[in-house]
């Protein structure tokens, strides 16, 4: 089962002929992802490793049946690349690009209301259903297929760390995804939790947050109200000073809001199993999830 993507997902790559686009297209293909098309305006008719390249998403979808897109388009044009995917009625758009202006994302977000396209990201590592489909830049090899754990995170390498520890403990993953480090993103924690809740294969979820905004607090409240699967939570940035942007555009404590302490408190209040020390995350998950697995 897993969520959002599976073996049948037909992936298109926007910006396939760029350096990053080429590299990660190959990585995804090597992992087994069905990459069916690429889009680079002006390069329609060419091929990249045998993958047909089109001038537009609309044309690529019409000719290849692509239903998901991975976007490697530079920041000035990335928002429009998302809109193009939405306009073509793609089911899923995964935007890897970091550095999209916030106002561009506000417009995209507003324009997506009522559309069927799900956006993951931007400024994210992507999504992987181990053993089935990888749309993103995460290293495939650290994952263990078959579940029972779902992973959702605002971060990239921190997610790899979490996945690595799960795999080391013999805990496989259903789907792992990074929702992105920008203040405005497409899919939220709650969207993912809802999907994991509905996915029969997922038995527990690891949710990795960080400072900035209040998405973790909202997710914690949602979990208490709606979730009947155990959730392990981790928050990065306890030692981050206020007013400083910690790498991610969205990772900032401002006006006393968005602190790690507040997020951890919200998690504890809402029966989430809080991981205090990243080094122990894998073993904590083993403890927590083995209860439901047995």
């Amino acid at each position, binding site marked *: 089962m897993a969520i959002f993507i599976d073996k049948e997902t037909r992936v298109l790559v926007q910006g396939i002929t760029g350096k990053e686009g080429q590299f990660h297209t190959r*990585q995804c293909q090597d992992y087994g992802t069905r990459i069916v098309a690429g889009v680079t305006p002006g390069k329609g008719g060419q091929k990249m490793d045998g993958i047909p390249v089109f001038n537009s998403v609309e044309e690529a979808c019409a000719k290849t049946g692509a239903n998901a897109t991975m976007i490697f388009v530079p*920041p000035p044009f990335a928002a429009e690349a998302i809109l193009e995917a939405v306009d073509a009625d793609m089911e899923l758009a995964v935007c890897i690009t970091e*550095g*999209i*202006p*916030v*106002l*561009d*994302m*506000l*417009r995209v*977000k*507003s*324009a997506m209301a009522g559309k069927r396209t799900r956006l993951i990201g931007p400024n994210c590592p992507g999504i992987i259903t181990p053993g089935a489909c990888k749309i993103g*830049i*995460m*290293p495939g*090899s*650290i994952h263990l297929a078959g579940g029972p754990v779902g992973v959702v*995170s*605002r*971060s*990239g*390498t*921190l*997610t*790899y*760390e979490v996945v*690595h520890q799960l795999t080391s403990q013999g805990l496989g993953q259903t789907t792992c995804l990074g929702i992105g*480090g920008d*203040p*405005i993103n497409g899919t939220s924690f709650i969207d993912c939790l809802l999907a994991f809740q509905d996915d029969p294969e997922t038995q527990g979820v690891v949710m990795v947050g*960080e*400072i900035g*905004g*209040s998405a973790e607090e*909202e997710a914690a409240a949602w979990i208490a109200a709606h979730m009947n699967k155990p959730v392990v939570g*981790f928050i*990065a*940035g*306890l*030692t*981050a*000073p206020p*007013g*400083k942007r*910690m*790498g*991610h*555009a*969205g*990772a900032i404590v401002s*006006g*006393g809001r968005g602190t*790690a302490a507040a997020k951890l408190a919200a998690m504890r209040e809402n029966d989430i199993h809080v991981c*205090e*020390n*990243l*080094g*122990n995350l894998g073993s904590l998950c083993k403890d927590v999830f083995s209860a439901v697995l047995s």
Partner: protein
Amino acid sequence: MKIHEYQAKELFRQAGIPVPDGQVCYDREKIPSLIANLNMPVAIKAQVLAGGRGKGGGVILAHTTKEAQAAAEKILGMQLVTLQTGEEGTAVKTILFEQGIQLKKELYLSMLIDREQADIVIIASRDGGMDIETVASKTPERIITVHVNPLLGLQSYQLRKLIFGLELDPAVTKSFATLVKKLFTLFLNSDCSLVEINPLAITVEDTVMALDAKMEIDSNSLFRHPDITAMHDSSEDDALEAAAAAHGLNYIRLGGTIGSMVNGAGLAMATMDLIKQAGVEPANFLDVGGGASAEMVENGFRIILSDPNVRGIFINIFGGILRCDILAQGVVTAARKVGLSLPVVVRMEGTNMEEGREILAQSGLDLTNATDLNHAASLLTEMVQ
């Protein structure tokens, strides 16, 4: 990116938003000639990016030429200490002389990005000149908020909500509405993340005027604003943070003794937290990005070592697509190149991890391999004992 009040006011002027007449001065020599052309009273305002300058003595209202001269001489060049500058303060390199205004009332007005609702929020209050956080916590009913959809833009009913909420005199509403509309356009056109006018004056002529102006621009948008990018004043930046940024590294100085070098912002924050949990203080946040090339590692070492507080370094890299042997080779080369003498704990994970560890072990440098994060933590604890 923050810009100075005088720069924001220049953008206001271009956008047709009323501001008081003003003169900028960088040079003590020019103070007398500038003052000679001004009517009194005049406000002398330190142009620093840090907030809280008023309480720090960075703003003086002068009623006579003599007072103005004294105030300007006092402020220009002073080391201004505010809540946001730290104890050492920040040097005032620019001052703004601004014509005093006869006013009836002071309001508060700001616009910012609301990340939860994914729109632009306008905040207004009758309590101009006061700290808005204080107003919000003590008298929340005096705060008016309006959420504007970025595609639809500002609507008349939203302007009316502000006007009725502020209980504006009918004589002022047109002038106020015009200002809000122009400010909103400026917000969009300049890719602002924040615009704040505090106070916004209602003058005796029943017009509105921005007495202060605070603007922050979304850094991600600067590629389309060369004019605003040119306004950047790096003199208040941390020297090391600026040097790191020039190398494309995300570095923030934290004041502790253990430097860290990590790929990825989330893992870098978690690493800082881990150092703290190991009983030592993190010296910095440093994200070398997803690639972590030998050159990046070298630049990272140089930045960390420029901080005299640093006693040891923790390299925490989750290689991902990057191979560990390549990374290890980069670390060894860079360490030799910068003449590294501090102890380094290296924890790396990913493809060819074994080969990578072997390279570090063979290097003859003081590089200790950590097998996992908990091992790394205990090594850090030992390091400082």
